[in-house]
């Protein structure tokens, strides 16, 4: 039992960066933009937070940090970083109508380069002998969890033992789902992604919707990077540590059929699949073969993708205008 509780906790913590990324990407895709820059944006979200926190920690000294500011400053720098990334993407794909795939991939190259560059530079400044930056003090503030969780036993451990960003991720996903399906803004946004010409004719400002949601999506995805480094990795940034999580987030978008609320269990499931080889042993399979389990998220996503294209059920298809730029005079 304790084993399961521990596994579940780890799965959630693995899943939360993915959830942030997936929610951000879902919102973006709902506006008709396939943003393959999400991995880069999450990277930038992480390193921007690290930069903010690094300079705050080193200016006042790790021992004297104000817990409130220690959270607020990285949060703001992270948001700023991913917002700029989102704006670059929007300017190129919405205003200049550039190819979304090429722009997104370039953004990922740029973002990971940006992250590794500043990560590497900070490591050098800090003079650490390990190839990593350690921000334990800040991380501690991020990791503050609900005080009563321990007193609730297993339920407390399963559901209430996490830090605030975990709940932010879940709440953001739920709110996104609600907005998409139950508000006028959501209706208009979905119309933009499905059929921009119709939306335009109905008097909806197509480009404004694209800009706002894509930038908002970037910010949300960037928080995934921040959570990863501050909480999951306990404030330790090492270049390349973030891995392929950005692409896993893109996979979850498909797996959850473009529904943010479905992305919540999907993220935890993917998080679990990612670490399950540490927890179960199948007779005859060594640790090496267990590495195969990490393939599962991609494999199941592929199967979902194939099934939805075969079944042709309209509700589970990608937004119809996904990947196409909109130009009014093309109608």
């Amino acid at each position: 039992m304790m084993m399961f509780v521990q596994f579940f906790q780890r799965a959630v913590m693995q899943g939360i960066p993915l959830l942030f990324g997936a929610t951000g990407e879902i919102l973006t895709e709902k506006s008709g933009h396939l943003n393959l820059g999400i991995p880069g944006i999450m990277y930038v979200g992480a390193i921007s937070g690290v930069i903010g926190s690094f300079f705050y920690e080193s200016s006042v000294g790790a021992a004297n940090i104000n817990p409130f500011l220690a959270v607020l400053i990285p949060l703001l720098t992270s948001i700023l970083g991913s917002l700029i990334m989102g704006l670059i993407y929007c300017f190129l794909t919405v205003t200049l109508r550039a190819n979304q795939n090429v722009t997104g991939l370039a953004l990922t190259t740029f973002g990971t380069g940006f992250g590794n560059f500043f990560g590497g530079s900070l490591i050098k400044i800090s003079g650490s002998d390990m190839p990593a930056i350690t921000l334990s003090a800040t991380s501690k503030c991020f990791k503050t969890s609900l005080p009563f969780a321990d007193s609730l036993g297993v339920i407390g451990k399963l559901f209430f033992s996490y830090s605030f960003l975990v709940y932010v991720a879940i709440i953001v996903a739920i709110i996104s789902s609600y907005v998409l399906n139950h508000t006028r803004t959501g209706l208009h946004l979905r119309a933009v992604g499905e059929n921009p010409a119709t939306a335009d004719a109905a008097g909806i400002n197509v480009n404004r919707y694209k800009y706002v949601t894509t930038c908002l999506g970037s910010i949300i995805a960037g928080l995934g990077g921040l959570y990863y480094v501050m909480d999951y990795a306990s404030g330790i940034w090492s270049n390349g540590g973030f891995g392929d999580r950005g692409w896993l987030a893109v996979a979850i978008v498909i797996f959850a059929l473009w529904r943010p609320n479905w992305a919540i269990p999907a993220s935890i499931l993917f998080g679990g699949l990612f670490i399950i080889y540490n927890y179960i042993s199948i007779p005859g399979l060594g640790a090496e073969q267990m590495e195969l389990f990490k393939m599962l998220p991609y494999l199941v996503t592929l199967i979902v993708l194939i099934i939805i294209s075969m079944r042709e059920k309209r509700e589970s298809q990608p937004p119809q205008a996904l990947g196409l730029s909109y130009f009014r005079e093309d109608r």
Partner: protein
Amino acid sequence: MLGFHVVKRKNMDWWKAWLIRGASIILGAAVCAVVIVFLTGKDPLDVFETMVDGAFGTERRIWALLQGIAMLLCISLAVTPAFKMKFWNIGAEGQALMGGLASAACMMFIKDALPNWLLIFVMVVTSMLAGAIWGVIPAFFKARWGTNETLFTLMMNYIAMQIVSVFISIFATGGSGKIDVLNASTKLGWMPSVGGQAYLLNVVIVLVLTVIMYVYLKYSKQGYEISVVGESENTAKYIGINVKKVIIRTMLISGLLCGLAGFLLVSGADHTIARETVGGRGFTAIMVSWLAKFNPIFMVLTSFLLVFFEKGAIQISQICGLNASFSDIIVGIIIFFIIGSEFFINYEIKKNAKEGGSK
């Protein structure tokens, strides 16, 4: 309302289009220079000199540059037929990796069971097959059920990487978590060095491929069919082209070439396999191909451009003690500018005549 509106250009002289692209590269380079000067405090001209030095400074650097161009170009050539057909294959990374894995496996298991030339031949064939399988699977689903190829090939990349991870974890050398250089002493399965140059054969092969691809796209019937399908599926059907067959056949070629690139990377350069063997070239290749308007000859230029900036930026970072990832930032900025410039080639901004004097 704003005082201007955007209209599609009917056409633009080719030289004007290239002038705009050239200007965008210069503008991008200028922005990079500002960034570099800001970070290092060096004179911009100095910076440029350092970049040139980094790319061409020594014979070794020139060979490294050529090898870098050859590998990037090879994968770019591979993705081009698919893109020309408007099939968004972003799975070159995985296709090349599978090819590389096949090569590495041959090097590990066949070793001296076959004469070296036959071993290399088997490596080429298995690599190309592995890449082709990875390319045809998404094509089949696209042709049969219209499955979104962008997302499909993306997933295939990571499945390939995971397969490589498993392979590595099983056959890792000692506890290092990676595979050492294979057949380091016997050099079995290594691409022979010609005239003392390890990379020469690679470069020559890719050059020949460039010409073949150019001829294939421009002069072969299959290349012609690819263009028609890419331009208008309606026309393709009107003249009786079997669109599904063309999609699968083209992705087969794409995959074969990606597999070959994997072989060249493993046999001709790394002599081992890792998750990073392809090193993101599968994605960069998309930009190379797209920026060159899918013309193999122009792709020599665009891949040179990107590799030059990459190597140059690495040199700057070494001299100024910056992080090596600096080059990704520089390459990213340059690409943003080139992508953005296409807008000014395809559209023009006109002032609103009506707004001022309506009525």
